[in-house]
């Protein structure tokens, strides 16, 4: 049985249901990220696990024990907030010691634990400083140490990096992940930044409007998105609308040109509308022979991004973007030129749900 198991929880605020029957099982020591756009209910789920909100229905179990109705202070859960959650009136050491004092540990034990935590976050020199004397990144590391000091069963992080600037964000996410691995603590991380989610997690749980769209490893989520939403939310994606011309052989007509998917179209009948997706990195310029797909179109836009040139190719209704490397000895293609792009049969992602 999973260490943390969230079973069919819903949460209703007044007339709106924010979380709609979410099931999630997190294994011991696993790092799971809730990823989704603003307002999809990520924080609400986290707050229900922490005990700050009570689910309208459903059950939350930690290590087999039903904690749905326990108060937050009875749950032994470490929480790191977006920002400004350190106690401003206490030094860093006192902040980290707070939970231990609450638990009535003796002085020597507290002192050694605080020291251990400060070393864990690589900030042994700031023990006597006040939070306002630390940078944002340091504050978040102290917040992490404070949450971990009580040896919580589960660590919850609600967009802990979003108030920081880009460089620190990247280095801190590696650090958080390293600490999490070192301690082997079961962790739920909330973010709306897909790069953060993909780079840190064992598994990513993509959410939309209070539901889980897809749960899987970063590799699965990125390469095999199950729904149109996941495909478009994670990574850049070209979506083409088409119609099935032969379901059994995986033939699809897009803007009058036929493409073939190697994965087949189980259960689809001729004439069905569907959406397929292509990652920009799967597309190359030129006509390819053999089993590859070719689509003819015209160049719509050319964006010079430095090392990469992003080209937008228009077919009739649909358009795709693709990236080529910049070569100093070859001028980039120009708008209006005809162009053929090719991609492998296996690169086509067929999305669930009707295209719109």
């Amino acid at each position, binding site marked *: 049985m999973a260490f943390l198991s969230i079973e069919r929880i819903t949460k209703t605020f007044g007339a709106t249901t924010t979380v709609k029957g979410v099931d999630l099982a997190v294994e011991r020591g696993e790092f799971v990220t809730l990823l989704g756009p603003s307002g999809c209910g990520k924080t609400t789920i986290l707050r229900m696990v922490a005990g700050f909100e009570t689910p309208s229905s459903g059950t939350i179990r930690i290590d087999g024990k039903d904690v749905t109705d326990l108060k937050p202070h009875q749950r032994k859960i470490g929480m790191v907030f977006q920002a400004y959650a350190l*106690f401003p009136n*206490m030094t860093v050491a006192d902040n980290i010691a707070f939970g231990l004092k609450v638990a009535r540990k003796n002085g020597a034990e507290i002192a050694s634990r605080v020291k251990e935590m400060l070393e864990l976050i690589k900030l042994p020199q700031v023990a006597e400083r006040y939070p306002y004397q630390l940078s944002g990144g340091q504050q978040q590391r102290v917040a992490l140490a404070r949450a971990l000091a009580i040896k919580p069963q589960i660590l919850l992080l609600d967009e802990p990096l979003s108030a920081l600037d880009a460089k620190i964000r990247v280095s801190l996410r590696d650090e958080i992940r390293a600490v999490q691995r070192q301690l082997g603590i079961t962790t739920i991380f909330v973010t709306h930044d897909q790069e953060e989610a993909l780079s840190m997690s064992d598994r990513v749980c993509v959410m939309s409007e209070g539901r889980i769209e897809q749960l899987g490893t970063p590799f699965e989520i990125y390469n095999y998105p199950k729904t149109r939403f996941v495909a478009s939310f994670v990574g850049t994606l070209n979506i083409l609308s088409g119609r099935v011309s032969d379901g059994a052989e995986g033939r699809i007509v897009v803007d009058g040109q036929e493409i073939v998917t190697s994965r087949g179209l189980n259960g689809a009948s001729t004439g069905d509308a569907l959406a397929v997706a292509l990652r920009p990195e799967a597309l190359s310029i030129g006509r390819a022979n053999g089993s590859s797909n070719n689509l003819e179109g015209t160049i719509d836009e050319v964006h010079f991004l430095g090392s990469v040139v992003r080209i937008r190719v228009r077919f009739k209704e649909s358009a795709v973007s693709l990236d080529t490397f910049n070569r100093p000895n070859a001028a980039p293609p120009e708008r209006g030129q005809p162009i053929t792009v090719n991609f492998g049969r296996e690169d086509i992602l067929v999305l669930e749900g009707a295209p719109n």
Partner: protein
Amino acid sequence: MKQSRFFPWIGFIFGAIYFLVPLIATFEFSLRMQRGTYSFKAYQVVLADPGFQASFSYSALIALLTIIVGIALVVPTAYLVQLKLPKLRPVVEFMTLLPLVVPAIVIVFGYLRMYNSSSWLPLTGSARSTDLLLVFAYVTLSLPYMYRSVDTALRTVDIRTLTEAAQSLGSSWPRILIQVILPNIRVGVLSGAFLTFAIVIGEFTIASLLNRPAFGPYMQLIGANRAYEPAALAVIAFAITWACMGLIQLVASFSPGQKR
């Protein structure tokens, strides 16, 4: 742009004259107790008067109790209203403003009617219980100032996040209030406390009608019977008030854990 400085200055000078001239005149008069020279004789007389010492320490004690009861009442209330019952805020704000609208004399007559010695709760029956009544009355009088200071201070801190952080670390409500919330709003609490002190020290109506030996009635008594001492007393009372204001400023500028 030069011209725009002119009127503010006029305003400032007018205000300064309006406030300072009577004060300076009072001070000057208070120094003239000894014929022909300036001296602090009047101050010596006042400070040496056992009546002054007794009434001042009585009022100071009552002020202290008022502050304690006031903090114990206002801090949890303002905290809970802000955290859990934001809808109640207008109601609570209105209630805390009532003491500014209802005159003290009305409050005290209400008290005398409710708690007189033949009522079901005869608080005016003994001196001690009347002191209690006085403290409650003063808590009411200082409510607008105390509530406002505390509420403003609470708004400058992210109390929700701090509360939740403390809760997830296992803390109970009393500990959250005392160790996390109170220290972070101490500037507001202390300014509320000093304002309360200034109000209680100078209050006359309620103390007089409840017949308590407070500083206000004492000042009134001296004022009615002496010539130079009341002026000295007035200056002393001003000095106390200003000291309170100064302390508020001082506390606000020396608070650990906050940016200066």
